[in-house]
């Protein structure tokens, strides 16, 4: 009987309560009629008789109730019998049950774990009030293709005045607060935020409060709010901290509040201070460094806001042609900004783990199919003894639900452990990982998946055995089971499907491996081993000569430190995680400027030894020296990218460029060209850079780059000590070895690779187990036949070919199908790949070869076993 009508009749059979109810009602009415007739015969009038009969009956409804109670009681009792029987059956074949439960647990556990990550990171609402209405606003560059960049204070001010779609808009500027007081001096990276910032996000403080409106006024703004992590780490979670004063940047600041742990906007810093409006807010239009958020007005849509800000940006391009001629605007809902970048990878991982679950299901179905063959006799006997088909099907359903609870329960336990592990390690720097927990939705998901998995896996074999052909089955002697063609075909199909899915996952993992290898082979342009970076702020030292003196003194002491090979410092170091870099327009002497298309470069202030410490090659001219003093002629060194961009055929040496630095306009001569470095990760692109001698332009924030002879981590305290000889209260931030920095940029790729690799491995193991199981089974069935063949003179080779041939046939079909499917699916992975195409033929070929070889092995083992059979025994085998 085809599947659909079978399922329909199954449902109808299981839920036959309605019919029983109908029959009962009819019966009671018949009873009532008969009784009424009796009364009429006794001489009562018809309606009196009926009433009397009803009274004697005791009321139809009450009777129905009592029968219903007995019915339910009976149903539960038989259900309990089924459960106990099912458990007994499962215990009897403990090995079988364990395999099925383990397979289910693995599949369900992995899927639930990934779902919980997807749920915590992507699905759950953010901890900010009504987060669908919170927007982040960005500038974009229409000509150069920059999709989103920070905003300038002047543009923000104009937007704030003109934008109608938002009921409030605020900015956050990156800042630094150095604390001196009890304990080690420490530099905190912080945000100064404009009025309304906390209200837009709508999160109340955990202790204390956020800023009052008057605290955003100049002179009243020496208050701070701490983040939860900072409060715990540096202040030990002191509940009395609110109200106390801290000395920050030399001034007393009062702590007015501590935020709850989930408040992390903008991400990365844990100290907030008010930012009163400044006089030059309307003038700084070209430099972009603030982050803007806004709250959408109710019954306004994001598209409206985007359209409005687009037209405002166009207006401003007219009004300020010097700075805004190619400046557009982009609005992103806050959720998109915070987690949008991990969505593709997470969804791909979820798809992959669902594939693994499918393979696990197929294996369980295959196992149950094999078992079903054994149980045909059992069910035939029960049917012959009077069990209705309804009862038998219910038995199967109960058993599959038992498997679901055992498998699902273990799977949930497994996923709880895995979630714990992932949250602790946080291997891929996933955002909002703290919100990944095994919560209600995850539990429901796991439950649904368990039930569906178990029911689907056991339904197909079950439906076949619950309608046994009694005579046929009972007549069979001994333990041989019929070589049911249909069942065999189904198992073969399952194995082919498993191999295909495993192929897809292995190809995906292979592509990621090649991407990672390609990434690691990228030359970042400088030497990455054994170097240390520390960032300091020189803000309190105002005079340029003093700053220069400070840097020269500290660097001299550092270079003298045993174990230090070279040391330098720069205002921006590659791969550093807090680079706030904005390009500066440069004017090249002798070339006309086109408005809106000025050449631009990133200007970095460096000490003389920095480029040498970094390890970039000098390509022409000279590097900077200590002789480039404030009073000598202004010089710069440029990198290769800038040279190739503007001086393809001529020599840049000797040419002069003019640009703004720290409010001054300078014209410098190019004296050298160095190699380019990758600025922010192995997959980033080199950008045009100009290196300015520190002596000629002392910046306030510098990062030391110290090349050491041995392990840089050991040198940290010594380095800090030497610097503190010049300023005992020096605070440091962003301390890392260069290796750590490089690692950080590859961590997410590594996590993706690990996950997909694990899934592919699981898929491979499960598929091979499925293949092995099928081949063993069919080989065992054909023992008789093999015995005959050997007796008739077949060589070992021929028998091997026979058995393995069957397995290889299935494998090749599976691999071929997998290749086709993978071809279509891997293009979805595009954003995760590096240096290799989604349809890279080499990867496909290698993986196909690998899979076929391993499958061959899986077939070989049962084949060898078959050969060891004594032909005489085989011939007698029934």
């Amino acid at each position, binding site marked *: 009987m085809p599947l659909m009508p079978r399922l329909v009749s199954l449902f109808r059979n299981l839920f036959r309560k309605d019919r029983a109810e109908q*029959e*009962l009602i*009819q*019966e*009671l009415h*018949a*009873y009532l*009629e*008969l*009784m009424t*007739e*009796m009364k009429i015969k006794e001489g009562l009038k018809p309606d009196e008789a009926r009433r009397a009969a009803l009274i*004697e*009956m*005791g009321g139809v409804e*009450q*009777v129905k109730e*009592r*029968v219903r*109670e*007995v*019915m339910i009681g*009976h149903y539960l009792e038989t259900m309990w019998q089924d459960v106990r029987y099912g458990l007994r059956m499962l215990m009897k074949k403990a090995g079988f049950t364990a395999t099925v439960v383990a397979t289910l647990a693995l599949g369900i556990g992995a899927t639930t774990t990934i779902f919980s990550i997807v749920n915590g990171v992507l699905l759950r609402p953010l901890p900010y009030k009504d987060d669908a209405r919170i927007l982040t606003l960005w500038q974009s560059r229409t000509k150069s293709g920059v999709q989103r960049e920070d905003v300038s204070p002047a543009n923000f001010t104009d937007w704030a005045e003109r934008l109608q779609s938002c009921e409030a808009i605020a900015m956050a500027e990156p800042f630094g607060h150095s604390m001196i007081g009890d304990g080690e001096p420490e530099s905190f990276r912080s945000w100064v935020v404009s009025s309304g910032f906390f209200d837009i996000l709508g999160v109340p403080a955990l202790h204390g409060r956020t800023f009052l409106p008057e605290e955003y006024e100049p002179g009243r703004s020496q208050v701070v709010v701490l983040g939860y992590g900072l409060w715990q780490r540096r202040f030990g979670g002191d509940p009395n901290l609110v109200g106390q004063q801290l000395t920050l940047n030399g001034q007393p600041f009062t702590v007015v509040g501590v935020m709850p742990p989930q408040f992390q906007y903008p991400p990365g810093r844990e100290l907030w201070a008010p930012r009163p409006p400044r006089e030059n807010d309307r003038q700084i239009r070209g430099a972009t460094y603030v982050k803007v958020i806004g709250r959408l007005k109710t019954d306004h849509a994001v598209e409206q806001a985007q359209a409005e800000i687009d037209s405002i940006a166009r207006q401003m391009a007219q009004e300020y042609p010097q700075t805004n001629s190619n400046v557009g605007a982009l609005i992103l809902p806050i959720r998109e900004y915070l987690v949008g970048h991990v969505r593709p990878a997470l969804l791909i991982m979820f798809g992959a783990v669902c594939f693994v679950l499918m393979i696990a299901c197929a294996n369980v179905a295959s196992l149950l199919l094999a078992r079903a063959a054994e149980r045909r006799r059992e069910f035939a006997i029960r049917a012959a003894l*009077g069990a209705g088909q309804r009862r038998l099907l219910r038995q199967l359903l109960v058993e599959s639900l038992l498997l679901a609870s055992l498998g699902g329960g273990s799977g949930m336990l497994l996923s709880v452990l895995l979630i714990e592990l992932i949250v602790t390690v946080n291997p891929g720097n996933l955002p909002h990982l703290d919100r990944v927990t095994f919560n209600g939705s995850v539990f429901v998901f796991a439950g649904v998946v368990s039930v569906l998995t178990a029911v689907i896996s056991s339904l197909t074999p079950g439906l076949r055995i619950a309608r046994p052909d009694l005579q046929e089955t009972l007549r069979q002697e001994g333990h041989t089971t019929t070589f049911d063609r249909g069942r065999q075909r189904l198992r073969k199909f399952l194995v082919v499907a498993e191999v295909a899915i495993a192929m897809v996952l292995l190809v995906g993992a292979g592509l990621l491996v090649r991407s990672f290898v390609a990434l690691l082979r990228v030359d970042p342009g400088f030497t990455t081993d054994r170097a240390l970076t520390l960032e300091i702020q020189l803000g309190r030292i105002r005079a340029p000569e003093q700053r220069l003196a400070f840097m020269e003194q500290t660097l001299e002491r550092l270079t003298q430190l045993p174990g230090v090979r070279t040391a330098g410092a720069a205002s921006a170091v590659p791969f550093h995680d807090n680079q706030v870099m904005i390009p500066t327009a440069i004017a090249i002497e002798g070339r006309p400027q086109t408005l809106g298309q000025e050449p631009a470069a990133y200007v970095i202030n460096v000490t003389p030894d920095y480029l040498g410490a970094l390890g970039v090659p000098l390509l022409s001219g000279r590097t900077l020296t200590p002789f480039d003093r404030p009073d000598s002629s202004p010089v710069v060194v440029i990198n290769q990218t800038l040279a190739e961009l503007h001086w393809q055929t001529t020599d840049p040496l000797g040419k002069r460029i003019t640009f703004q630095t720290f409010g001054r306009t300078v014209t410098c001569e190019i004296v050298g060209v160095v190699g380019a470095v990758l600025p922010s990760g192995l997959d980033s692109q080199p950008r045009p850079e100009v290196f300015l001698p520190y002596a000629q332009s002392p910046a306030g924030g510098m990062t030391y780059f110290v090349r050491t002879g041995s392990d840089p981590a050991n040198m940290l305290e010594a380095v800090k000590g030497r610097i503190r000889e010049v300023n005992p209260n020096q605070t440091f931030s962003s301390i890392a070895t260069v290796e750590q920095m490089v690692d950080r940029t590859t961590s997410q790729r590594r996590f993706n690779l690990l996950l997909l690799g694990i899934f592919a491995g699981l898929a491979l193991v499960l598929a091979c187990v499925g293949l092995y199981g099928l081949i063993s089974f069919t080989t065992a069935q054909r023992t008789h036949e093999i015995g005959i063949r050997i007796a008739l003179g077949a060589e070992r080779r021929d028998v091997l070919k026979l058995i393995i041939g069957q397995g290889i046939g299935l494998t090749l079909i599976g691999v071929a199908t997998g290749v086709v499917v993978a071809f279509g699916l891997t293009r979805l992975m595009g954003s995760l790949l590096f240096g290799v195409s989604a349809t890279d033929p080499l990867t496909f070929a290698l993986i196909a070869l690998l899979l076929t070889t391993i499958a061959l092995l899986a077939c070989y083992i049962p084949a060898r076993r078959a050969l060891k059979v004594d032909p005489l025994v085989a011939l007698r085998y029934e």
Partner: protein
Amino acid sequence: MKGKKTDLLQGTLDLLVLKALAPKPLHGLGVSRRVEQITKGTFQVKPGSLFPALYRMEQAGWLASSWGESENNHRAEHYRLTKAGYRHLETETEDWQRTSRAIASVLQAI
């Protein structure tokens, strides 16, 4: 005593129903009338007790039911004893007699 409603132990009720149905199949009302008859009016089985008992005994396999016509051409569910039912009646009767003999001797001894 006519009209007195006495609580019946479930086992006792089963026994009476089995006994009532032993000679020939009956419908629901017929069973309750027969029980009243054979107990000479001591026990009157109301539908509230009868139908649950009939359902239970049918599930246990002692009764079988079928739709049939009663007198006056009313359609009603008719119940009859199965072979298992007859066997159960025998064993229950023996048990009951043994129990009542034991109780009787205890009462006499006082």
